[in-house]
């Protein structure tokens, strides 16, 4: 699905400021830690859906978590020796 990430040309590079964490230093640090550990980011996902698929309904947090776990531990090694 090319272009699924959004339609506006010349968007800003996504980064720590885009993912629902434009708050305090603590919030930004928490966001970095979550991404490093590969933790689920429900707020970020909900925001993605609202931005790119306004017509889609946002799944509940527990549904989102179930899909996240399947993705993360479903196939292929995610950790090394």
């Amino acid at each position: 699905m090319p272009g699924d990430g959004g339609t506006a040309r010349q968007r800003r590079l996504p980064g720590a400021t885009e993912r629902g964490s434009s708050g305090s230093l603590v919030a930004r640090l928490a966001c970095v830690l979550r991404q490093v550990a590969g933790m689920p980011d429900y707020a970020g996902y909900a925001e993605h859906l609202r931005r790119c698929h306004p017509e889609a309904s946002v799944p509940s947090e527990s549904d989102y978590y179930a899909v996240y776990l399947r993705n993360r531990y479903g196939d292929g090694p995610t950790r090394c020796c």
Partner: protein
Amino acid sequence: MLLKRMGWLLVALAAAVAWGVLALHRGETINAAWLVLAATGSYLIGYRFYSRFLANRVLVLNDRRATPAERLANGRDFVPTSRWVLFGHHFAAIAGAGPLVGPVLAAQFGYLPGTIWLVFGVILGGAVQDFIILFGSMRRDGKSLGQMAKEETGPITGLLAMVAVLAIMVILLAVLALVVVNALKDSPWGVFTILCTIPIAILMGFWMKVWRPGRTLEASAAGVALLLVALVGGRYVAASATLAPYFTYSGLTIAYGIIAYGFIASVMPVWMLLCPRDYLSTFMKIGTILLLALGIVLVLPPLKLPAVTQFIDGTGPVFAGKLFPFAFITIACGAISGFHALVASGTTPKMLIRETDARLIGYGGMLMESFVAVMALCAAALLDPGIYFAINAPLTTLGGNVHSAAEVIRGWGFTVTPEQIDGLAASVGEKSLLGRTGGAPSLAVGMAHIFSSAFGQGLMALWYHFAIMFEALFILTTVDTGTRVGRFMLQELAGQIWRPLGRTSWYPSTVLASAAVVGGWGYFLVQGVLDPLGGINSLWPLFGISNQLLASVALCVGTTLIIKSGKARYVWVTMLPLAWLLAATLTAGWQKVFADDPRLGFLSHASLVAEQVRTGVTGAAVGTRLIFNDRLDAVVTITFMVITVLVLLSSAREWILILTRRKPAQAREAPFVETAYAG
């Protein structure tokens, strides 16, 4: 411009001087600073010049080209992630127990061979492999190594790669579990702390899923805090005459415990145990590695291990075999690791924002892992050589008590007294450190030494158990995630024979496949615990060989990608490390199977045991088991070698077809889409 050039010249000079000091130094001790300086200087030069050459000339990274994270963004796995965050994420995924244990074992050759292989191996081999596979996967919407092998070389190669990965997983889990067993046997403190991680993880699981959904960081912080409480509590358990016996177990009991744990963790819901443990071990790992780096820089300990020991002749007590080829398979992770190809073609390629980020994350991330391995080597090399061998030689070699051990070690030319060995064990809160082969305990002693010198004297025992807990925690996390991954792979393979077996949601299939995977590594683990030569002697080389052969498969795929993208003139960037790796690994495999020395060769060991059974030295039942295991190990080694040679041949056929223009050079990359991000 001139200033910049002068700067790089200075870095190169500093590294060269440090290497010179390392090579020419002939004294009692040498400061770890030289080792750290030689390594970091070389990494910087390698990153700045060689990885730039790879990025610009060989792979031709293009920031105008949209990455899968941008094109396929779905807010879940395809998530554009800023590069330093992704660097941390990728590093946490690739760095495991391998880079910590391998260099410690290889320290029996002295610190120099390991350092040279770690630094040059990573710059010319390991980092190149990670970078190219990450690049290839990024250009193919995040496809896995197996899928790339299948699409670019053919279905048989893909299937072989899959079987190889499953077999490697079994050996890897067995040997890592053996490292934990040797660290925890007869250690109530260690066992208590590690047992506590299970209820802590379950508590975190309920916290994140049921009580306060989504509060993953909060739960992890609580988990880390509880873990530290358990660590301190372990001291009181070990000191208590009533509690200590409940947590004191033999190696065999612990092995069966880990096997039971691995099975339960694999069939339980992931949110309850596996996922929270994964978070816990990730944070502990990153925190401890940063602490270790800080400690080494603050303390800059003198290294007491000789640059090169007499054991390069193959008579080493930790594992048998000469410097070539065994240094190059004992140190796999840290120099080059085939396993990384699986991670580099997993989650990371789906998160890159720009193509050029692949250089920092693929090449740079692997340099960072190599640095971790260098630090582990420093931690082992700062021990008195006598102490190092007392901890790492098998108990049967050392004669079972501190007096005989001191005698044996003196015979090797290193001075150590029984009081020193006992004193060290007492200072770290253990009854005995003798014969704890596997690298974890000697690394923990070294780390405890660094930490207590840097952050607080007198806490040696606490730091030792902190280090043991940190190693055991993430090794056991590898065991449960690895068992699960192995189970999925087995189900996929079995599903091709009988379809219902391939359904991962069908509970009987799940239980059956989990039991098969756990049974596989559990068998090797138990045999390793019972092995009179110490287990590590046969299992670690087997793991090293399998991991390096997987790296050879990855380099074959990398070579195919380079040739297919029309860059055949640069094919040496993967061919040179491939040639070296095949030479070392196939030689090692051959020697492990056919060498005449019974400590080294599986088959000659089997004949020796047969002889012992005939003369009555060994009982018939034990003898039959040992002979069967030797033959099994030989078959596994030969299987790895055959698979690799087959992958090499099928890849070579493809290369020749393309180079002689009988087949078009066409890589199956996803089509070019221009990025929408502002440059």
